[in-house]
């Protein structure tokens, strides 16, 4: 089939559907998104063009990362990953000594994800990856004490349940210790976490 024929077919009433009559416009992603209250929504789901132009590990990802995370992302050992790419199944199980899958729950979201803590080398990488997965908000980063650009007016705090069943703030202990003791993660709404008296221990730098 030549491309000329192809083009013509697109304009005819193929398959009984006259899509021109539907007055559907092709809303391309990347156009400014307007919420019902008229405000522009930043950091909402990544449109196609953003994905394609994503230079992984670059500083161009201004929409989603707060400044502090952006700085940390400047020289990652491994790339910040696009979800599901490259298409390797259970990669962590290949060629690695162990894999450490933990469930990640997000307050207000009806679904869980699983992450393999073994594939990250630092808190920054983990938090960036979580932001990718739950792309409608940003995560408050205790490591640098800076407030990140808030989205939706909701801030989340990353917490985890350790081996003893206690809920701790992510970032309190050295990375390796965290990987070993973390049983699962929960991204808690900051408003709810305030009254919980989660302890924050000595701070560790993002080079851990």
């Amino acid at each position: 089939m030549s491309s000329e024929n192809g083009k013509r077919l697109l304009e005819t009433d193929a398959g009984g559907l006259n899509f021109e009559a539907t007055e559907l416009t092709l809303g391309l992603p990347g156009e400014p998104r307007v919420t019902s209250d008229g405000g522009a929504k930043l950091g909402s789901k990544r449109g196609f063009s953003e994905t394609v132009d994503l230079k992984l590990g670059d500083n161009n990802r201004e929409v989603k990362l707060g400044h502090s995370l952006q700085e940390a992302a400047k020289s990652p050992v491994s790339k910040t990953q696009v979800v599901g790419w490259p298409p390797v199944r259970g990669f962590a199980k290949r060629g690695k000594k162990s894999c450490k899958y933990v469930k990640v729950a997000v307050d207000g979201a009806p679904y869980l994800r699983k992450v393999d803590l073994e594939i990250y080398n630092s808190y920054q990488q983990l938090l960036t990856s979580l932001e990718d997965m739950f792309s409608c908000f940003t995560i408050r980063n205790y490591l640098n004490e800076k407030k990140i650009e808030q989205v939706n007016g909701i801030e989340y705090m990353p917490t985890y349940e350790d081996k003893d069943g206690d809920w701790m703030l992510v970032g309190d202990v050295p990375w390796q210790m965290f990987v070993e003791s973390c049983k699962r993660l929960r991204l808690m709404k900051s408003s709810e976490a305030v009254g919980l008296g989660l302890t924050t221990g000595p701070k560790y730098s993002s080079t851990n």
Partner: protein
Amino acid sequence: MQKEMAYSFPDEVLKHVFSFIQSDKDRNAVSLVCKSWYEIERWCRRKVFIGNCYAVSPRMVIRRFPEVRSIELKGKPHFADFNLVPDGWGGYVLQWIAEMAGAYPWLGEIRLKRMVVTDESLELIAKSFKNFKVLVLFSCEGFSTDGLAAIAASCKNLRELDLRESEVDDLSGHWLAQFPETCTSLVSLNISCLGSDEVSFSALERLVDRCPNLRSLQLNRAVTLDKIANILRRAPQLVDFGTGNYAAELQPDVFSNLAGAFSSCKELKSLSGFWDVVPAYLPALYSICPRLTSLNLSYATIQSPDLIKLVSHCPRLQRLLVLDYVEDSGLEELASSCKDLQELRVFPSDPFGVEPNVSLTEQGLVAVSLGCPKLQSVLYFCRRMSNAALVTIAQNCPNLTRFRLCIIEPKTPDYLTLEPLDAGFGAIVEHCKDLRRLSLSGLLTDHVFEYIGTYGKKLEMLSVAFAGDSDLGLHHVLSGCESLRKLEIRDCPFGDKALLANAAKLETMRSLWMSSCAVSFGACKLLGQKMPKLNVEVIDETEPPDSRPESYPVDKLYIYRSVAGPRFDMPPFVWSMDEAVKILH
């Protein structure tokens, strides 16, 4: 009178004739000849394959085929393997088991892929089917060792228990001990997916001991190298064996024990497992290497020189799965030693690394294409490719049926010319006339899809990522690929036009997945409205799609044909575009 009698066979004769017809396609053809053949055929169909568990309801299957003994079901879309389908999406088997428990008391075989299987489902299987023989759970999840214990305890004549690549919650290693002493029927046992504490080794040994027909055994990672010899000596009749951990300090007596145990297995043709390999123990395999036809080293972190040595001992190899540690040099050795090679899969050892960590390029694959004339199936991860290489591969291997290439960095061009890889993939589809499965990667324009639509007449499954320029690309595929059954697309600029213009095509396919593309919510609604035989499902984990303008693109879209109507088990983040459902939503 005589003429009429010559043309009417008694039903018994037809039934007997039909019993020789095994393939689904042929059975379906038989059932269309006339009403009486339809009736006779449906009563004697014993095996049903359902490629999408939501395409039909259990009740409908039972109503048409009342005497089924073997069923195979597939649930989640393929991209679930790569974390693109959120947990809770669906694919639950319980309702199927529940309805079949009543209707098929003689059901003997259940094979499931990408389905959610709970302990409750397993317990129901264990108590409902007295003649249960085969349970295959391929890439399933949702169950624990408690469910396995129920199966082991109740299924007196179990022949196959295969849990490959499933996720199992480990609660206790004692489930294996639930196989009664009277169970001697096992032929195949695959527990390779189980975690550390999930297997009682002594129970396993006793089980292997009393099952003289055991042909296929895949151990899990927790089983140490020193235990392999014990197992093999109890099962020298094995044809297919998966080791656990293949690491230990090199000790001469352990080595010679292991080598002796392997050499006593005269039927062994297929090996897998090999977690954590100590290369010094690889020569223990040399005695059986000449007979090996299949070798799965996809977990083995062994470097090229050791791989070369091993592979050079395996002249009969037909199937090799390996990490990219094999490098171009290892593949060149493969090409010269293994002339019977039919299938090659090369996985990335460091898929998320920025720089290449091994010397594996397109050259390795070109070498194999040149040296292995019987090559049919390729899955290859690499970091660079050229059109020239793809053209060479296509010309060397016109018999390819499956070609999946993953260039790790999205949109990577031909590294020599910096052009898109359209011509290279075009050559693949043009020369490989029997190509059934294709996965694309690298920099690709709409042209590649024009080639695919023109030449890919036997193509049944196509996977596309980060490719194309416009709707024309999708249109070429949907309008040209006559045999297309499954299409999965992510991060491509394909929108409403091609989809709507080819809506009828979707009813001839099993399913279409599109994520991070440019299909609008409005188009999804229209499709759902106009095509009642399609289930159009929008997946959005952040908010309802109708909270935004209709022109907004949906995040994920899964369309599949179904005679069962919209499903009832959708989680909150899946929206059906079916008219009737929308009213109730």
